[in-house]
């Protein structure tokens, strides 16, 4: 189930190493043997549903939880048994957690004061942080006098001002509204690029993970289901869970009728579909096939024709078009009532709900797993 492709590079460029980290709360295994290496200057996303253990893992890195076993190495130094205040780690929280009795400026320079940075340097760095995060003019404000986005930027400034060896972000955008979130995604990515500080970004939002990060680890039940570059996680999911969690996909379940080379033909609701063949599948095996919305094409049923060899075709009726701006989702109802969703550019589409259509895709795309 678990597959790791841990790339690390040389020891010097590794900002964070986790070795077989385990942590349980009572009978619940929150983190169950995690290996992770984050490179210097890398933007790493920990993606998973709630309860998958990603926040616990982050707290272990920060030193707020002690792992039952395993080691945490930050910047080449084993910090497993160090308290949080020796680790040179910054952290940004979902609910901002600014100190309510301190002004924005006082919040931001707090880490520097704790490190006894001289006043001149403190002021200099504060000016730098204010400029970087566009917080000029807000220094004297108290947290409750700031908007959500401003509070989050202050929290980011506090996390970044001491130029930590690592910045941890725990769902930092979850409490912001949609527009602001999109804006902040870009901003956060920019800070990371400019500062070259490695970010470990926890989120349950796959879009966030995909937009911002270099690599993604998909976590479930305390283990990494897959870890790799974002394109790889998106296009080559390592498990059925990853396939359904990352991106929007149609899920089809069937039994293998026959296999030939790298293809398998499955029986699905009385239709034959060609899918990539998972290793060691034999006729009779149950198969979970998932195909991303955007991999499914749609054309008018009248044009019909033969969409070419090696393509799967499903005839149905267009139930609805969900217009999303740049793209649209076409919901196709098959004769047996099952729905297939295709996503595409709503170009000169003349299709109307109720039209007879064909949903089709090349047999080589999609991901299938033994069920």
């Amino acid at each position, binding site marked *: 189930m678990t597959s790791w492709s841990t790339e690390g590079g040389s020891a010097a460029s590794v900002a964070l190493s986790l070795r077989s980290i385990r942590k349980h709360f009572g009978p619940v295994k929150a983190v169950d043997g995690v290996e992770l290496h984050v490179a210097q200057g890398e933007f790493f996303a920990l993606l998973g549903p709630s309860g998958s253990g990603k926040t616990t893992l982050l707290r272990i890195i*920060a*030193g*707020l939880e002690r792992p039952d076993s395993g080691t945490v190495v930050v910047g080449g130094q084993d910090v497993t048994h160090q*308290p*949080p*205040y020796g*680790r040179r*780690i*910054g*952290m940004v*929280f979902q*609910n*901002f*957690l*600014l*100190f*309510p*009795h301190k002004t924005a400026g006082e919040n931001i320079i*707090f*880490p520097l004061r*704790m*490190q006894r940075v001289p006043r001149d340097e403190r002021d200099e760095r504060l000016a730098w942080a204010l400029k970087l995060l566009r917080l000029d003019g807000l220094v004297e404000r*108290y*947290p*409750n006098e700031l908007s959500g986005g401003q*509070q989050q930027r202050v929290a980011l400034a*506090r996390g970044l001002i*001491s130029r930590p060896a690592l910045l941890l972000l725990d769902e930092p955008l979850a409490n912001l509204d949609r527009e602001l979130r999109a804006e902040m995604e870009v901003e956060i990515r920019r800070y990371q690029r400019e500062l070259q500080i490695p970010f470990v970004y926890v989120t349950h939002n796959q879009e966030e993970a995909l937009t911002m990060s270099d690599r993604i680890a998909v976590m479930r039940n305390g283990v990494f289901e897959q870890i790799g570059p974002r394109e790889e996680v998106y296009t080559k999911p390592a498990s059925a869970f990853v396939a359904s969690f990352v991106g929007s996909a149609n899920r089809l379940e069937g039994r293998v009728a026959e296999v030939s080379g790298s293809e398998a033909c499955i029986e699905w609701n009385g239709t034959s579909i060609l899918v990539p063949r998972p290793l060691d599948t034999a006729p009779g095996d149950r198969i979970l096939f998932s195909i991303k919305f955007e991999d499914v094409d749609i054309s008018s049923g009248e044009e019909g024709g033969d969409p070419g060899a090696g393509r799967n075709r499903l005839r149905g009726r267009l139930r609805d078009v969900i217009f999303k701006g740049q793209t649209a989702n076409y919901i196709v109802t098959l004769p047996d009532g099952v729905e297939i969703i295709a996503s595409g550019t709503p170009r000169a589409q003349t299709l109307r709900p109720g039209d007879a259509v064909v949903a089709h895709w090349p047999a080589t795309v999609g991901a299938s797993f033994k069920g």
Partner: protein
Amino acid sequence: MAAIAQTLRVRPRRDFRFAWLVGPGVAFIVVALLVPLLAIVVFSFWRTESYELYADWNLGNYRTLLTEPAYHIFLARSFIGAVAVSAICLIYAWPVAYFIARYGGRYRLLLVLMLAAPFFTGVILRITALQGLFGPVGLINMTLGELGLPLLTALMYTQLAAVVGHVYLFMPFMVTAVYLSLVNFDFELLEVAKINGARPWRAFVEITWPLNWIGTAIGLVLVFIPCLASAVTPRFLGGPDATSFGMSLAQQFGETGTWALGSAMGVVLFGVSCLAILGMSYTINLRRGGFTGTRA
């Protein structure tokens, strides 16, 4: 138009109902608090002679209080005692309240209620119990005597005994005030402080203490004020050399029957208490207290 007319009709009625809610409380405060207070102020400028009040206006009572050294000693004694008791309560109550708020879990409420257990009996009984503990024939000294050890005379009818008694009596107020502040405190902020490089003690000084100062100040006032005016406890536990301002005040209304002088003492006590509260309020900055902070 109809809507406007309606709101115009409704609004005065709502205010009227509101007055019904507030009225009894205000009336009670006026009758039971302000009137006696005013009476005391008035009496303090009058004269008493053989247990009778005479309404001839003079400053004699205040002159007595200013010139008679005994009253200075009583007031100083009460003041220092109240400061000491508040300080001890503060140091004692914080760890207790902190422990309950942080680690009490589902037993929190029970633990706080247990603090109120001494209130299930009367003040006199509680003080008498302390006498039974500290006195010459009390539990501690009896045991020491049986073992052939020297007796703890420091606790037998001394000012120290009075301080201990006050601490015992007023501790629950202090713990409750600090506890109520701490249960509303977001302990996650401490984690944030630690991640940002604060050692535990520093995190306490920077975060926990300032954000709970208002609750603590309320606790200090709740201990200091009654302690300053206390008459019964020093009388039972303090012995002959511990006459407090409150004790002397009580005597003016009792044994000696000098109501006017007692009233003047009451005014002084009221003034000192007000000064104490004023001084306390100077230390409070609502914004710095986090009261206007983000809600969790």
